[in-house]
Each structure stands twice: as structure tokens, then as C-alpha cells.
């Protein structure tokens, strides 16, 4: 399986990157192909909601930055693994800015999924989505449930499947189990 890891732990001192080294090594040993990007060192503009990608240059974002590298890689991957510690209950803003930039991969037209409006596919297939994260001191069960909900909705919008959340305090094997990376 091709796994694209998009990672962000800005200002990190808690060893998140090292934890991800261990996990990606584990996945490689299991036979998966890993491509890993650290969003903190990429040139990524945020989405400005200009809709250039929907009606001026269909499918293409107006920003010519490192997302141009990521878009084809996302389409080629089987699993898009976002990796970032929780801050205020959600992964880093860098992860969110990157997720906002995914809309050129969709078509503006609306289709009904389970009776609900969503933008239709532009491409034939999209990778599954999973999240690796680290809890905060006061993270409770309810926070994790909300986190799952929001990622399920992200996946639903991208005609994808949310595989689950792995936490840094789990073993590599447990994370694989939680995110279905057998």
C-alpha cells in the first residue's frame, strides 16, 4: 500500500517526529511504501476561497506552491495519513490549511450522498484517510469522539473512508490496528 504521510508538529519538543520515524519504519517493514512530507518545511499558501480551481482553471489551484507536488502524490496514494499532535483539541493549523487546499480535487457540482449535499468527484478514486496524533493533558473521551466525527466528515466530503485515529501512546502494532494498516 502507498502511504502518503503529511506531518506537522511546529515548535515541537515532545518527540513527535521521532515517534513518527518509528511508526513509518514499522510500516515499511510491513511492506508498505511510505512517502513522508513535513508541512513545516514546505511552501504552502492557505486557501483563499477564490474558486479559481472551480471556475477559472477547472481543477487547478491558483497557487503554484508545494501543493503542486502533493496533489499528484495524494491521488497516487492508497492512504493519506495526517500526523500532528493535538493543540486545542485538533491537529496543527498547518494540517488544516493543507486540508483546505484539497478542494481543487473535487468538482463544484453537487451530488447527494445519503440524502445530503456534497461536491461530486473530479477524479475516479481518492485515498482513504487516517490520523496519527498525540493527546493533550486534558483530552477526554468526548474530545476524541469529536475529533473522529470531524475526520469522518472530511473523508465523506472527499468520497473517501476515514480509517481511524492512532495515538502516540499506543504501540506501532496498535496504531496499525486502529488505522487498518495490517
Amino acid at each position, binding site marked *: 500500500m502507498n502511504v502518503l504521510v503529511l506531518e506537522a508538529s511546529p515548535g515541537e519538543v515532545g518527540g513527535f517526529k521521532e515517534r513518527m520515524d518509528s511508526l513509518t519504519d514499522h510500516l515499511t517493514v510491513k511492506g508498505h511504501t511510505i512517502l513522508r512530507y513535513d508541512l513545516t518545511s514546505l511552501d504552502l499558501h492557505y486557501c483563499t476561497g477564490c474558486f479559481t480551481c472551480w471556475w477559472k482553471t477547472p481543477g487547478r489551484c491558483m497557487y503554484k506552491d508545494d501543493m503542486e507536488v502533493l496533489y499528484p502524490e495524494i491521488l497516487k496514494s492508497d492512504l493519506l495519513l495526517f500526523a500532528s499532535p493535538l493543540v486545542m483539541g485538533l491537529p496543527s493549523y498547518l494540517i488544516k490549511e493543507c486540508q483546505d487546499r484539497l478542494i481543487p*480535487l473535487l468538482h463544484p457540482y453537487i451530488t447527494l450522498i445519503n440524502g445530503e449535499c456534497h461536491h461530486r468527484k473530479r477524479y475516479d478514486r481518492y485515498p482513504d484517510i487516517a490520523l496519527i496524533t498525540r493527546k493533550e493533558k486534558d483530552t477526554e473521551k468526548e474530545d476524541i469522539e469529536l475529533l473522529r466525527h470531524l475526520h469522518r466528515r472530511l473523508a465523506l466530503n472527499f468520497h473517501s473512508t476515514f480509517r481511524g485515529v492512532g495515538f502516540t501512546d499506543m504501540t506501532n502494532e496498535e496504531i496499525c490496528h486502529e488505522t487498518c494498516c495490517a
Partner: protein
Amino acid sequence: MKLVVLNGSPRGTGSNTKILMDAFLEGFTMAAGAVAEAQQLFLYRDSDDLLIKSFTENDTIILAFPLYTDSVPGKVKYFLEQMKDLDWLGKRIGIVVQSGFPEARHTSFIARYLERLIQRMGAEHIGSVTKGGVEGIQIQPEKWKARLKDCFHRLGEGVYRTGTFDPDILAALRKPWELSPALRRMYRLMSRVGLADFYWNYNLKKNGTFEQRFDKPYEREHHSLKSSS
């Protein structure tokens, strides 16, 4: 009462969010007269320093933003991260989430997250607007737009008078929460005859890109990183 609207739309001063929040502030200011202060700041324009100062100095904070991938736009998350170590105790915080999808349900997940965060940080939640169908105001008749603005005007008045969002106005703004079976049938019919996507087709044709609308530019491309990593 000192109130600030923090506008989290990347479109900033040209945003649909601003249209709604201008009406809100108008209602608030008219009710308050000279005894309360209110202003609107823009997360995608104003400096971190100014935003931190506004968070600290105001007792009532309205965080308003468009729905991005059923969540907050990236910069709204950035803002929340910047507010992490500030004192939230005693702050009264209202949420306004607006989306282009006709049903309001899409906005409910991030609203729940923010309500939980407000509670976690020890502040008081004064209500959440969860509103669908807002991108459509770009092409709606003035009369419809006026009705929506009137809702926000009254919401602003209510915040001055009671300190909270009026539950009846919130209930009205939430409609439709989901598409009813009848609305779904209408949507499918409109899709078949090409009416459902009128807004997109209108803009695609205006830009002369209608024939390219199904392009898949990123399928076979390869680029190298612009950054040094």
C-alpha cells in the same frame, strides 16, 4: 459590554460572513446606542498582536467563519492556537458558522467542537448560529438577502439586550437542517435538468471554461518541491 466580531473568512472584507456580521453589528449598535462598543476584526488580515489584544480586552467575542471541509478554515485554527495561553475565564463567546451547502447539518460538527472548547477553557458559550445556503446569497434576489440580514440584525439586538443569541432566531437560521425527502426529490430533478448547478455553470460560462469543467490536471503531473527540504 465590549463586543468584538472576529471574522475568520479568507475572503475577509469581501466575504459573505462580513455581510451577515455587518447586519449583526448594526443591530447590536442600534440597540446599544453609545453605551457599548463593538467592532469587527479579520483573522486573515489583522496582526496576531491586534487579535490577542482584542481577545483580552473584550468581554463578548463572536467568532464567525465559513465552513471549510466541514471544519474551521486553517487560519481560525491558527487563531485558536494563539489564544491557548490567554485567560478565557469570564469571556462570553458566540459562534457563527455559515456554509454554502443548503442544509445546516454540515455546520453542526465544528460547532459542537467549539462549544466543547469554550467549556474546556472556562468561558461561557452564548449560542451558535449554524446556517446553510449562504454562498447562494451571491445570486439571490435582494428580498431574500434582506430577510437574512434582518435575522442577523435582530440577533445583534438580542445580544445587547440579553447577552445571548435568541434561541428562536437560531432555530429559524438552522432551517433546513437536513433535506426532507421532498427537497431531495426536487434536488435530483433539478440536477437532471441542470438547474441544481446553475451557480457553477453561470460562472464557468462567464469565464469561458465550461468545456474544461471536468479537467483532471493533477492526475499525471509531476512537480518538484519549491522549498529546500
